[in-house]
């Protein structure tokens, strides 16, 4: 297990390094410049370039960037008067994390419940309705749900605030919009696992021991069905990040998602790089955690030394 974890950490570092380098290089290849203000004279632009170190050879800039990054310095934002990117991200990240976690937790709880119920009622009305919901939920993008919810519950019924992030009531619409996809994805996966597990011989063994239906389902079926569900947490994190970009924008939430979109529009290179690296880091970390977690909760992998 130890060796396996080390190997995974190695991969994680390489992937992260590649992301940083790619981000850096693509920023250097960008056709537009952040100094497009027509009032700026060429001398002023050159002064700005010198100030940000953009007149030096790319290799030098690269080494400098990496060195600073190692010290947690991602440079200054162009659009916010050279304010530290690190500080900006640190400032806005908790909001996005809050939104993402709430959506994942809500989605996982409802999704697992639906999946379990559907799986236990395989082939019946409850199963079919869950399947139909899941087909719709996984197909329709979160920004459509967001629009529908915002219009009906926010504008029309006025049950919830339309935009902002100032208290619990503000969380409802964006969290639900983001969670619908998660619910559908997890419900579908859990249902398939449940149906498969329920038909396993060891479920009959458990029944033959005289255990109650509840114990059989709870201790034998659900536990075994739950293990593979862990594997979709990685892709789900990616989906949540993607979704949060638009959801934060639609609901005017001051997180890194809406920040990212505005830095793309304003060519704020350091901010784009910082956010990209943060997202990549999150994703890589989530894949790593899922891998390790899977090894920890599945005894078959745990003991045989993690041949995942």
């Amino acid at each position, binding site marked *: 297990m130890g060796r396996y974890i080390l190997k995974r950490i190695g991969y994680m570092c390489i992937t992260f390094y590649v992301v940083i380098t790619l981000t850096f290089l693509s920023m250097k290849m960008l056709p537009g410049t952040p100094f497009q203000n027509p009032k700026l004279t060429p001398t002023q632009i050159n002064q700005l370039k010198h100030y940000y170190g953009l007149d030096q050879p790319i290799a030098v800039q690269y080494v400098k960037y990496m060195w600073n990054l190692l010290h947690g310095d991602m440079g200054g934002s162009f659009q916010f008067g050279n304010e530290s990117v690190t500080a900006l991200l640190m400032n806005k990240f908790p909001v996005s994390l809050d939104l993402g976690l709430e959506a994942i937790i809500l989605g996982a709880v409802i999704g697992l419940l639906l999946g379990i119920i559907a799986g236990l009622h395989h082939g019946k009305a409850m199963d079919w309705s869950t399947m139909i919901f899941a087909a719709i939920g996984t197909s329709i993008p979160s920004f*459509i749900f967001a629009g529908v919810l915002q219009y009906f519950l926010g504008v029309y019924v006025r049950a919830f605030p339309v935009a902002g992030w100032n208290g619990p009531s503000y969380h409802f619409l964006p969290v639900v919009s983001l969670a619908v996809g998660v619910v559908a994805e997890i419900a579908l996966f859990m249902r398939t696992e449940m149906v498969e597990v329920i038909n396993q011989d060891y479920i009959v063994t458990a029944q033959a021991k005289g255990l109650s239906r509840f114990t059989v389902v709870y201790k034998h079926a659900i536990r075994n069905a739950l293990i593979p569900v862990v594997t979709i947490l990685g892709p789900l994190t990616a989906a949540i990040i993607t979704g949060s970009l638009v959801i934060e924008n639609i609901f005017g939430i001051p997180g890194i998602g809406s920040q990212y979109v505005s830095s793309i529009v304003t060519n704020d290179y350091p901010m784009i790089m910082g956010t990209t690296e943060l997202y990549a880091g999150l994703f890589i970390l989530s894949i790593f955690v899922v891998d390790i977690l899977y090894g920890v909760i599945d005894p078959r992998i745990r003991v045989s030394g993690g041949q995942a």
Partner: protein
Amino acid sequence: MAVANQDITKEMFLPAEIDRTENERVSGEVVSVWKDAVRRFVQNKGALLSIFIVLLIVLLAVSVPYSHNYDPTHQDLNRSNLPPRVSALSWVPFLNGQEDGIDVYQQRGIKKDFWFGTDQLGRDLWSRTWEGTRISLIIAVIAALVDVLIGVTYGGISGYFGGLTDNILQRIMEIISGIPNLVWIILLILVMKPGLIPITIAITATSWISMSRIVRGSMMKLKNQEFVLASKSLGAGNARIVFKHLIPNSLGMIIVNTMFSIPAAIFFEAFLSFIGLGIRDPQASLGSLINSGYEVLQLHPYQTVYPGLLICLLLIAFNLIGNGLRDAFDPKLRH
């Protein structure tokens, strides 16, 4: 079960002539994998309906932008933000050209009908919506085809040759897939500037990975099976084995995966429009239409409704077709 003894006559104890071939006959006709798959697919009502819906949408997307009287890019501020009106159906609440109880058409003295209304610049949304659908579909289909091309080649080489080649290709892929596709797509578009081709390239940049994984897996499984070994021992070359045996046998999975990459591409195109990296005005895509509709969602919700509805229909229909195909090709997976 009890038979009255008198019903049983002595003659009945003579040996019976029983046709034993009857017992050995295999019941049911023998069908090929493909015929079988088609038969199963046709039984799937949802998937059939989805095919019908997709065909209808494609037909409209191809024909409307050319046949309609309005140019999708023609602006006329006098007719900006008109709600939908279909004179023949004016008794339907949302097709009567009224907004907040006021007949906007009458107010502005406009005689023509705009079935889906108009946008802020007075462009006809009926033709823009279908034009947008066309662009979204083009992007999705090209992306799916490129997926097949790259994914099958990469996965095929990796799976067929195995060993060192496989090891190197897999390590590269592991790193590529370790980066969230969002990051790839955004970086690529930033470098290339938004447009139909860059968006397609960006979407394909990561989506081929799942295809290559599937193809590699099936190559590895198939290449050691007896019929392939038999072909090899008869002197068939690599190309022949790959194209005659391996690809035809993985075709089902390739088709299924292609079907799923179409809705994924439609989604990402729309997503990019949302973060300002999509198709630029005056061109339209479903994503860009929804995005500009959102700016006036509270005042003129109809501007979002039609493209929103279309994108939902397309995504659900393609996913259902994909599910139907998967079940048809691999009945084991059907639950």
